């Protein structure tokens, strides 16, 4: 069924949502959502707050369980496993297998406060990927260098600025070599003068190109610059999507127009 669905596309998407619904109490946050991300594609989700953008990332990272629908990650169902040709609810073992292809950077960093920056980055490769400690440290140092923190290996999170914490968090997620990286409003908790250093790191990653990236952000200029595709999302569904220039400069739907005119007024 999965293969049939993709007969006409050149490459299989790395992420596919099929009629995914997520309900919190009385609120339907995702409404039979169909949505795809190609391998190496950079997709930004924009939309009003409370529209469910972050929920898309959270169900992908297995932090929230969808009520209905199927999510495919690199050809495997995420929340289901195949049993006798049917999809049944996935067990933890299956979740761990598929989840490994996805990485996430959070708005509030969530660094491990009892570990140094270096150990924040080596901990999962050592204990999850079973990488030898020496290799993990070497790789962690490379990654911390890459995000501009070569002098902060032995610092604890409490000794770092918000921008530095977020860059450690990015290195930590990269260390797991995910095929898809989720960025959940990663600059929203930062002081304005620290936003740039984090966006620069993400921009660099986008330019390298190997990883698919799915971003939720309010930095519209940045979204325009790094995205292959911008998705305008509202009330649990994709309202409109396309190349950044089309969506930002020539939106078609009334809701999109209203949203952009509202945020551009500020």
């Amino acid at each position, binding site marked *: 069924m999965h293969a049939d669905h993709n007969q006409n596309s050149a490459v299989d998407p790395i992420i596919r949502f099929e009629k995914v619904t997520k309900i919190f109490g009385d609120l339907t946050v995702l409404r039979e959502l169909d949505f795809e991300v190609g391998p190496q594609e950079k997709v930004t989700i924009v939309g009003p707050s409370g529209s469910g953008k972050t929920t898309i990332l959270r169900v992908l990272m297995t932090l929230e369980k969808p009520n209905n629908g199927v999510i495919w990650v690199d050809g495997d169902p995420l929340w289901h496993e195949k049993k006798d040709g049917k999809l049944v609810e996935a067990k933890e073992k299956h979740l*761990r297998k598929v989840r490994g292809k*996805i990485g996430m950077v959070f708005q509030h960093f969530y660094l491990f406060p009892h570990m140094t920056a270096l150990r924040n980055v080596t*901990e999962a490769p050592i*204990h999850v990927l079973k990488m030898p400690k020496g290799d993990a440290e070497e790789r962690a140092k490379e990654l911390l260098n890459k995000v501009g923190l070569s002098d902060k290996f032995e610092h604890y999170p409490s000794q770092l600025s918000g921008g530095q914490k977020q860059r450690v968090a990015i290195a930590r997620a990269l260390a797991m070599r995910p095929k898809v990286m989720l960025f959940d409003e990663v600059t929203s908790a930062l002081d304005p003068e620290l936003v740039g250093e984090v966006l620069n790191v993400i921009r660099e990653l986008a330019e390298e190109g190997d990883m698919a990236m799915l971003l939720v952000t309010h930095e519209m200029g940045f979204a325009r610059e790094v995205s292959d595709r911008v998705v305008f999302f509202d009330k649990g569904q994709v309202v409109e999507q396309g190349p950044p220039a089309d969506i930002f400069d020539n939106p078609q739907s009334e809701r999109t127009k209203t949203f952009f005119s509202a945020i551009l007024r500020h």
Partner: protein
Amino acid sequence: MSELWNWGFVLEILPRLLGGLVVTVEATLVGFILAVVLGLFLALGRRSENPWISQPIGAIVEFIRSTPLLVQLFFFFFVLPRYGIRLPAFLVGTVALGLHYGTYTSEVYRAGIDAVDRGQWEAATALNFSPLRVWTGIILPQAIPPMYPALGNYLIGMFKESAQLLAITVTELMLTARVIGTETFRFLEPITMAGLLYFLISYPSALLVQRLEARYARRS
């Protein structure tokens, strides 16, 4: 007949009292280790998503917490032998002490675990750690250090309440003092000295815990 303080008598009974104190300290420490280990498992059991685990453990914890230590001591020491389970008094005493205080420490763990930011769990999931590693590597190392003052207070509480072990014939400090009293018909020195020995350990320990408390209060 009034008694006057007799230093010679104090020196004479001191070695026996110190022997009792050693038993008190041993019972406290063994009981505390039990309480700390048991408390963790009770706290984890109560958090279990399986109601067949969480409900019975919750009921046991509430029952023990709401009844005097003496009930547990007497139950293990006087009731169990009727069913063929006969255990040495010291063992019964330390197990009852550990069990009783384990229900208190389980609440300390619960609060400590709840105080860890929800985001830590989410980051741990995102990095795909195994559930065991999430507990041992990420959650407990953050939850436990802030618990030290509360655990310290329970340790001191156990040290004092271990005197109740005299009711099941453990010759700890208090029973030793009473036996000396009944043997010599002098209670003034043995009971006073027992109190003094308790104080000499409890009070400095309490000051230490206060310093720990101040340190964690400063940090948070």
